[in-house]
Structures are given as structure tokens and as C-alpha cells.
């Protein structure tokens, strides 16, 4: 009994240690005081208004959203194709390619970032939004491949064989049967890719062209000058997006699957 209550207390403490800083940011975002700190003087949305009026931040926000969305589209498309090849076909060097696709997760991001940068220098290519997008897609791709691959392995081959025997061409079979069946994983993979890109700072610092800021690099830049309450508000928005989007997606997925059965 005593051991259990000790374990419980310990667990709660760990969670507090992990989530308290986040909670502080969330609370301070609504503090009316100019200087972030406790006790909170009054409730206010002024930092959100200020955030909205700050051109640099809204620009960074738009960049991040665009980057995240494009990363999701590119890495999901590539991820689906890679997963299809790896699960449905036999070819030489399959294991090697699998390892290759997963490596970006294992290699430290800094190493990956510097590596890609040097490679592009060698090709005499300047840093650009395209490069940043390419880099983010590389980082997100393994996650998409893993999620989609897991799902595809669970989709029995005979669904596809049945569709073909009924007269559907391979392409029709993919769009009529395989794709709808793996849609939940595709959706999850795309969300993964989006949040990974939206959150990323380490690699982004290396890859972004001069003058371009994403939300994380913008926050980073602002922190170097001062800890403004605006940052708390921005943090609030970031947390809402990175936590809220997957949660919402999960709820939607459950709603749709329940409707069907």
C-alpha cells in the first residue's frame, strides 16, 4: 500500500515537473502586466492583440503554416509511395532502402542540417524556401513511412486481388480500395509531418534563407532581446496548434469510424 502511494506521488511530481513550465506560459499569456511574473495582476488579451498587430510575427506564422502544409503534402505523398513499394513489392536492396528512409530519425538533426547545407554549397545552390521545404520533408518522411507502412501491412492483399478480379485496373484498385483503407494512417502521417515541421527549430536555423523567419525561429530571435509577454501569447498559440490539431484529428477519426459501424 505505502509503496503504491509513494509511486503515485512520484508520478504526479514528474508530471508537474514536465508540465508546470507549459502551464506557466499558458497562464502568463493572459497576464495584463508588462513584466511576466507572478502573482498575475489581471486578466487581459492585450498580448494577443499585440501579437496580431506584429507584422514580423504574423509573417512568420504564415511562413510556418505554409511550410508545414507543404511539408505534409510532400512527405505524405512520398511516404505513401515508399510504403507501397516496401510492403507490396519484392526487389533487391529493399532492406537498405528501408534503413535509408528511417535514418533521418536516427541522425542528430544538427548533423543532418549541416550535411544538407554542405551538400547544397557543393552544388552551388543558395539557401531558399525550397531548400527549407526539402529539409523539413526529409525530417518528416520517416514518420509518415512508418505510420503508413504499419497500416498497409495490416491491409490484406486479397482486398486488392478481389478488386482486380472484379475488373479494376491496378490504379483503380489503389484509389477504390487501398487508399480508402489506409486513409486513417495517411491522415495521421500528414498531421505528424505538419506538427514536426511547425515545431522544428534546430534544422530550420541552418536552412532558412536570410530574412525568413518561422514561428520557432522568430520566438528564438525575440528571446535574445527580452522576455516579452508577447512570447507567452505566441507560445499559447503554438501549444494550441501542436496539441490541438492532433487531438481534433483523433476525435474526428473516432467519430467517423463509429458512424460506419
Amino acid at each position: 500500500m505505502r509503496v503504491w502511494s509513494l509511486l503515485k506521488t512520484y508520478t504526479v511530481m514528474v508530471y508537474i515537473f514536465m508540465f508546470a513550465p507549459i502551464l506557466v506560459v499558458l497562464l502568463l499569456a493572459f497576464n495584463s502586466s508588462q513584466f511576466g511574473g507572478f502573482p498575475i495582476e489581471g486578466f487581459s488579451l492585450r498580448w494577443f492583440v499585440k501579437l496580431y498587430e506584429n507584422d514580423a510575427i504574423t509573417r512568420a506564422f504564415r511562413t510556418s503554416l505554409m511550410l508545414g502544409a507543404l511539408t505534409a503534402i510532400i512527405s505524405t505523398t512520398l511516404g505513401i509511395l515508399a510504403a507501397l513499394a516496401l510492403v507490396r513489392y519484392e526487389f533487391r536492396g529493399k532492406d537498405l532502402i528501408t534503413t535509408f528512409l528511417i535514418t533521418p530519425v536516427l541522425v542528430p538533426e544538427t548533423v543532418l542540417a549541416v550535411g544538407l547545407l554542405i551538400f547544397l554549397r557543393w552544388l552551388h545552390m543558395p539557401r531558399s524556401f525550397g531548400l527549407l521545404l526539402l529539409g523539413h520533408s526529409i525530417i518528416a518522411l520517416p514518420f509518415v513511412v512508418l505510420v503508413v507502412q504499419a497500416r498497409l501491412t495490416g491491409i490484406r492483399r486479397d482486398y486488392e486481388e478481389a478488386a482486380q478480379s472484379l475488373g479494376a485496373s491496378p490504379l483503380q484498385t489503389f484509389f477504390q480500395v487501398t487508399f480508402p483503407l489506409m486513409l486513417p494512417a495517411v491522415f495521421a502521417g500528414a498531421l505528424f509531418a505538419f506538427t514536426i515541421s511547425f515545431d522544428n527549430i534546430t534544422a530550420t536555423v541552418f536552412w532558412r534563407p536570410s530574412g525568413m523567419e518561422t514561428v520557432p525561429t522568430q520566438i528564438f530571435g525575440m528571446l535574445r532581446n527580452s522576455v516579452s509577454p508577447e512570447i507567452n501569447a505566441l507560445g499559447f498559440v503554438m501549444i494550441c496548434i501542436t496539441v490541438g490539431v492532433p487531438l481534433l484529428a483523433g476525435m474526428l477519426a473516432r467519430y467517423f469510424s463509429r458512424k460506419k459501424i
Partner: protein
Amino acid sequence: MARVELINIQKSYGSVQAVKNANVVFEEGSFTTLLGPSGCGKTTILRMVSGLADPTNGDIVVGGKRINNVPIHKRNLGLVFQNYALFPHRTIGENIAFGLKYRGVSKSDAQEKVRHSLDIVRLPGVEDRYPQQLSGGQQQRIALARAIVIEPDVLLLDEPLSALDANLREDMRVELKAIQDRIGVTTIFVTHDQSEALAMSDKIVVMSAGVVEQIGAPDEVYNTPASEFVATFLGASNLLPATVAGRNETGVIMETPEFGKTCVPVARSITLGDAAKGQLMIRAENLHLTKASITKIDSANAVVEAVDYQGQLARYFVRIGNTQLQAINMISGRPFSAGDKVNVSLIPEECSALPANDT
């Protein structure tokens, strides 16, 4: 509906030969079963006919046309899988109508055809449900409806009953055969279950290790097996090494240490040829046990070693000298028990002669 011909079909996976030189004709409108243990190549043949696998050698001819190079989606075949393979994200109606989309059937015609096919499989009115809302047997009927609604040239069934439980399997067996009779489609049925094969087929193709062992009507395959494999795979048999003691116009005289001379009819000794040695095959149900005091012709004295009691019949393991034999007898009165001395008799006309076992 079409006649299907396999001409010198071979299939190799690397160095493994899954099917060795098979020549089989599936007559128009007939129900043919590919029977054999797992790994004998029966499913490989089905997959080659359907287009899911390419033969390494040989020709597949359907309705007079060679279809080796026709891709699966242009072959117009109905395929039913062991696990039904109904699309879980489509309703029953959409599942059945799936193949009609690619055949230019109008929406209203498709609806009519779906309803008609559901009537055939005796599950009317389930169009709007999803596959997972139906039981296994019902799903299997839907899979069948989906395969026959496109009016296929050939219906291919890959162990369609093996996922069902025993009682349902027997009901579906009868029903499947009835449906096939009614629509008259050329059907190729793959199974490892001998009772399914014997009960349903017009013709059975017995396979083992990639080789077609025998092709014939169920009673033909059962009563006059062409090889030792067929004799032991179908039913329970006793195989006794024998020497050929003579030949006359009625049959071949096989001499065994257990039963002396037995005259096997010519029709039941075809594969023996001119060999001087062979095997005498006696079905377990054709060995009759009587009390030791009654001595019949073509009989031997034996001791019952074990009894496997099954209600209306019993399986006996009896010993004659050094040979153990199996006998399945209907029980009239009290069954024999282990240790009983009995007389075991056979009827020569019910025995077969097979080539000697070289291995």
C-alpha cells in the same frame, strides 16, 4: 461460361517447382475440385488461372483463347477467397456492384442485378449494411454474390468454406453446389478437405507436391486410386506389399502373406502394368470383422489391438502376424474389444492393385 484448359503448365519459384507440367481440362459448366494437402500446388494453379500469378511455362486457355498475357482485370473471372475479402469500407450493395462499374452497367440495372444476386444467395435486403455487421457464413454468401453478379466465364473458389465452423460448412457445401447447378458456371474449387471434394465435384484433380496424381469422378478417384498417394490421401486404406502370382481374363492375382491369393479385377489394376510386384490396397471399410469361430474365404485370423468407438461405427486396429491393419465397420450389436480374436475378411472385387512402393 467457358471451358478451361491447362496445357503443360509449370510454375517455379526460384528452384522450387510449385506446379510440374500440369495438363487439366475443366469442362464447360462443370464443377472441378483441385484437391491436395497444403503446398501441393492447387492454389498456385487457381492463382495462375485467375491471373494473380504467371505460369513459368505452358498455356492457359479459356473459351478457346490463350489468356496468359491477359491481365487479371480483363479476364472476367469470379474469385472467392477463403477470408471473403469483402471491402470493409463499402456497403454490401456497393461490394456486389463493384465489378459492374467496370462493365458499363447502368446504375438502375446494377441495382437490379445486385438484388437478383442477393436472392440467389438467399440474403435479400442487406444492401445497406456493412460487411462486419454480417456473420461469417453471410459474408461468404456475399463474396459469392459479388463473384457471380458479373456473370464470369469461370468461377474460382479458394477454400471458401474453411473459415466457417463445421455445421455451417456442411450447409454451405450443399448450397454452394445448388447455386452452381442453377447458374451453370464453370467452377474450379480448391480444397484440402476430401469430404468437400467428394460431395461437391463432377471431377476431382488430386495433387501432391506439384504433380497431378489423378483426375476423375469422385467415385472413380475413391475406388480406383491411380497411385499410393491418392489411395492414402482419400479415405483410410491398408496397403500390403504383394507379388503378382498370375494374370487371367478377370484380373490380376495378388499374393500377400496375410490373405494368400486375391484376384483383383482388371479395372482396378490399371496402374500396376506388367510389374511382378505390387501392393494390394484394401479400404478400411472393406475389411470385415467377424468372430474367430466363423471362417470365410479370403480371410485371415487376427487380434484386435485397439478400438476407436464412434457410435454407429467403430475403427479397429487389428494385427495379422506382423502387419497392423485398419478396419472401419458398422456396429451391429456389441463392438469387439481390444484383445478379441477375430476373423478378418475382404471381398477381392473391392480391392485394388497398385505399383510397388519403391522407397
